[in-house]
């Protein structure tokens, strides 16, 4: 297990290093110099040069890459070109919206998907199964930002149960903040829960036809007992993988949902940064998102190997 973990860790580090090079190179080929963009077209060349020096743009690309990566390793993402504040601070402020939102959505999606998937699998081919599967087919087809708009229309504008957008901050109290994230989290969770319910169902159905399930039934367990004691645990392996993948989708998908609800999260930050050509912010937020995807996949791999020792021999 240790050997396997170290091997995965090495591959995590290599992936991160390559990803950082790719992100840096892509952003670096961006036409337009941030300094001249900030100062406008009438700026004097020496003013531009001074600003370039101030922003650290006057050194070679290799040097800039190394100082960017070196800084990130120490938690320093550099200084925003437009706001002149540390990017780390800007990200830290926003991450407390985006991360709880993704976790909230993941929780909701699991709470919806598990019962739905188990119910459908236990009633395979019956009307209950067909209804749940039909609903998931629809759930997958619904764009989450459109569903978000419907939620706003019904629960914020018509019923006035929730506010239509904005975020009061965690200082206002846990439940006040959580309430502000509820509609966005539901919107994010719906399509993901539909996918997860389908995975849960098909994974359970695969397990139900296994020999050990027949043995469990043969030794006198009822269908339901066999399902809960032996089936569910084994069916969770593929479900966990999908949940790992979903977390990254939820984090990235949050970028769009944040736009619908005017939430001050990473998504808003990145769009503001794009329009202001604040490339260091774009670079850093993208790196953070990619890092979280790679990290979650790494953790899922480890969880996998812990659950199923057979997987440790594979890479």
């Amino acid at each position, binding site marked *: 297990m240790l050997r396997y973990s170290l091997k995965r860790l090495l591959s995590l580090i290599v*992936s991160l290093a390559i990803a950082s090079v790719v992100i840096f190179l892509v952003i670096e080929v961006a036409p337009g110099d941030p300094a001249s963009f900030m100062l406008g077209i009438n700026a004097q060349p020496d003013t531009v040069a001074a600003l370039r020096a101030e922003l650290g743009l006057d050194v070679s690309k290799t040097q800039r890459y190394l100082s960017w990566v070196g800084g990130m390793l120490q938690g320093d993402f550099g200084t925003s070109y437009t706001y002149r504040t540390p990017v780390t601070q800007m990200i830290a402020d926003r991450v407390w919206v985006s991360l709880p939102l993704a976790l909230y959505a993941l929780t909701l999606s699991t709470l919806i998907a598990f019962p739905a998937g188990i119910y459908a699998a236990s009633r395979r081919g019956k009307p209950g199964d067909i209804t749940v599967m039909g609903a998931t087919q629809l759930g997958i*087809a*619904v*764009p989450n*930002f459109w569903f978000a*708009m419907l939620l706003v229309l019904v629960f914020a504008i018509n019923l006035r149960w929730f506010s239509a957008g904005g975020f009061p901050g965690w200082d206002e109290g846990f439940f006040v903040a959580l309430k502000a994230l509820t509609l966005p989290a539901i919107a994010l969770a719906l399509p993901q829960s539909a996918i997860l319910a389908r995975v849960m169902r098909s994974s359970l159905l695969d397990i139900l036809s296994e020999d050990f399930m027949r043995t469990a039934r043969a030794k006198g367990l009822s269908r339901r007992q066999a399902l809960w004691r032996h089936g569910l645990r084994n069916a969770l392996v593929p479900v966990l993988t999908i949940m790992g993948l979903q977390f990254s989708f939820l984090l*990235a998908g949050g970028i769009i949902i944040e736009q619908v609800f005017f939430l001050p999260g990473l998504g808003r930050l990145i769009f503001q940064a*794009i329009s202001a050509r604040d490339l260091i912010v*774009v670079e850093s937020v993208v790196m953070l998102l990619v890092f979280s*995807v790679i990290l979650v996949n790494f953790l899922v791999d480890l969880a996998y190997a812990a659950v199923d020792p057979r997987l440790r021999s594979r890479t």
Partner: protein
Amino acid sequence: MIRSRNLLLGGLLCLIVVAGALVSFLWTPYDITVLDIPNKLQTPSLQHPFGTDHFGRDILSMIMIGARTSLAVAIVAVGIGMGIGVPLGLWAASNKGGWIDEIIMRGNDLVFAFPSLVIAILITAVMGASALNAIIAIGIFNIPVFARLTRSGALSLWEREFILAARVAGKSKARISFEHILPNVGNLLIVQGTIQFSLGILAEAGLSYVGLGAQPPIPSWGRMLADAQTMVSFAPHLAMVPGLAIITAVLGLNLMGDGLRDLLDPRIRVVRQ
């Protein structure tokens, strides 16, 4: 074939969307470049089955032309994904365990770490927002999907006798890959292609919604939704219609994908009988 309800319903939904897009090249109920402010924000009526937007433009006409954008972006993105991903997958499978295989698969893992939205953000930061950049972003995201699928499908085929026969006959790996392996993973690719197509439509809508996709004046379902957002309280139909159009297309493609899989994969068909 007709016995597959999924295929039939999915095909029908897709047909509606494709027909709408194709007809829009020749005819739309109204000219969407003409603004008709006196008739703005009308609810659905006989004259305007889906109502009018804040400029008085006919929403049905905009949906028809928007279908072109959605379909075009998704088709080209799937084309990019298949065009690059499938040869890479075949190449990796024919060198199983070798360094080419390793590089291709690790490269895939790397691309997988970039959600399509993040790729789109990077591309937009560099080149600006446009339908073309949305296509590139979704296309890049599709490459590892097809590469992995092709590789895993091809790996099991390489063990089969007819491939052995072809190798004994002296055919090169590349030739075997294209002449014998590719036709046999075709079914897998068609099914995955429909799924990626539907994901492409969703992705395009999302990107256009946040302003990273098709730019005005090209009509797009995602941008219609973005425009509708501020007016949803007094003109909900502005948001309902494009949303339902997206659902129709995506649901149609997904059902068709399911139906095709049942039809093309005999293993599953046997289970169902």
